């Protein structure tokens, strides 16, 4: 198989997979974010530390994110909405998956772009109609991929990416979420 260059260290991932099969404790990660209210519906989030492979870890930098609501929501637009962060997460998770699967399958990617749309009936969060859910009614991702592969192979990349995507799973399947007051 020719070595394609998508920039994903698939070898490292495959090795990690083998090692972690027999060391489930080491595979337990905890991702974290902290948030601070700034006034109105504006918050600032920071992400730096996480836990994994049996010890505390950290990103090289501390990353900061702003969230707010736009002016049509009578807010200040200091950042994107919390729900848009989910779309950001989904697109990036699936894209990373496409690249990883392509690397593993020896497919050279030239470009991978996507658009994500989340259909959202805001009567739910406004409390205007209790039959309307708070979250999305539908999420649609459209990939445009230019690669050294047939259409069938590209579709298979995208299907496999969903199969192994953390965010796809977090959105499509139920997750226990506990919210407490310290």
């Amino acid at each position, binding site marked *: 198989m020719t070595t394609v260059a998508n920039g994903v260290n698939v070898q490292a991932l495959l090795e990690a997979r083998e090692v972690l099969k027999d060391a489930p404790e080491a595979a337990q990660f905890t991702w974290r974010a902290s948030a601070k209210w700034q006034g109105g519906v504006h918050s600032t989030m920071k992400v730096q530390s996480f836990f994994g492979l049996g010890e505390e870890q950290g990103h090289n930098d501390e990353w900061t994110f702003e969230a707010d609501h736009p002016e049509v929501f009578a807010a200040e637009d200091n950042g994107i909405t919390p729900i848009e962060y989910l779309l950001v997460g989904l697109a990036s998770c699936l894209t990373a998956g496409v690249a990883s699967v392509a690397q593993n399958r020896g497919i050279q990617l030239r470009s991978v772009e996507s658009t994500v749309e989340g259909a959202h009936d805001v009567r739910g969060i406004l409390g205007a109609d209790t039959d309307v859910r708070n979250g999305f009614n*539908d999420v649609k991702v459209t990939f445009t991929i230019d690669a050294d592969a047939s259409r*069938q192979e590209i579709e298979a990349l995208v299907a496999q990416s969903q199969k192994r995507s953390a965010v796809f799973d977090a959105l499509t399947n139920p997750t226990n979420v506990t919210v407490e007051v310290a």
Partner: protein
Amino acid sequence: MVLERGEVANSWRRERWDSLRLLTPNWQSRLPGLGYEGPDPDGYMTAGEVTEFIEHFAKVSRAPVRTGVNVTSVRRAGDGYHVTTSRGEMHARTVVIASGACNAPSLPQFSDAVPASVEQLTPFGYRGPGQLPDGGVLVVGASATGVQLAAELRRSGRPVTLSVGEHVRLPRTYRGRDVLWWMDESGLWDERYDEVEDLTRARRLPSPQLVGTPERASLDLNALAATGVELVGRWAAVRDGRALFSGGLRNVFSLADLKLERLLDTFDEWAKTDGYEAEAGPPERFAPTRVPESARLQLDLRSGEIRAIVWATGFRPDYGWLDVPVVDAKGQLGHDGGVVASPGLYALGLPVLRRRRSTFICGIEDDAREVIGHLARFLAERGWA
């Protein structure tokens, strides 16, 4: 000596439903020295006919079967194994585990959280639609069992909802021949366990969505939906008496459709290179699995809409009697092509034991010859032959 806790072909007699037929055409029922001799080689035997076939084989092969003997323990002792049974104890230098991979149904943990007002059945207890209360049925799992039972229950007039996770889609016939003829002839079924790319995955594949009917009809999800079966995503959890289904249904359809397409491409390639092109009908491709307009994400199990659940979520082996440390954390037997890592201990009849055809009736002969060959050499090396 062959120890059998019940009668010959016990699971075919006791652990399957009334309408069950083989997925494989009768001509593929080949055992050493015994083939199908009936009038319908392209048909599909009933469970009763399979029982007769295996009983006949036991007689003509003069296998030394002791029936009604339940093995309760096998442990290492001295130069072999101490076997404890319901009819006494014995010592054996070699043991072949042939109890199969389907000793108990596999149920998700949340089955405990299903309200008691909903009846639950597994393929072990299910015999036919008449057993179930009137009203809606939720069939869980789109394997061969799942689609067959969903179809049968729908024909009984009940509303049926089928929860679909990853599955294997196959047409019953392809280019005029049984699809399993292609698997057999093309050599795909002969792919060896040490050649398979992802062996763990291959060994865990659900049975393909096939049914054995005289009409040789395909029983894929489009066919089921056409009869009014409602498709929902993989059942993920129970919360407050509600069944929660995955919103990722579309992708499991894509995965199955893409895999089918790759398989048919392989068949077409083989037909060309092996000169079958002229005899076969033209290549066919099948409509993609249709995604429901909006598949339900949840179902209230307390509303009475669903009166019964049929779990078609697979089976698992039971090695509770095997007191040798060769079973892994997931309850699976460790083996290398049927050779277990304990001297003189072997296995037969497990998925992709040595080949993709290992668990099919036509797959046992080659596996048995090779595994028993190893066993025979083991005995000879020790001067025990």
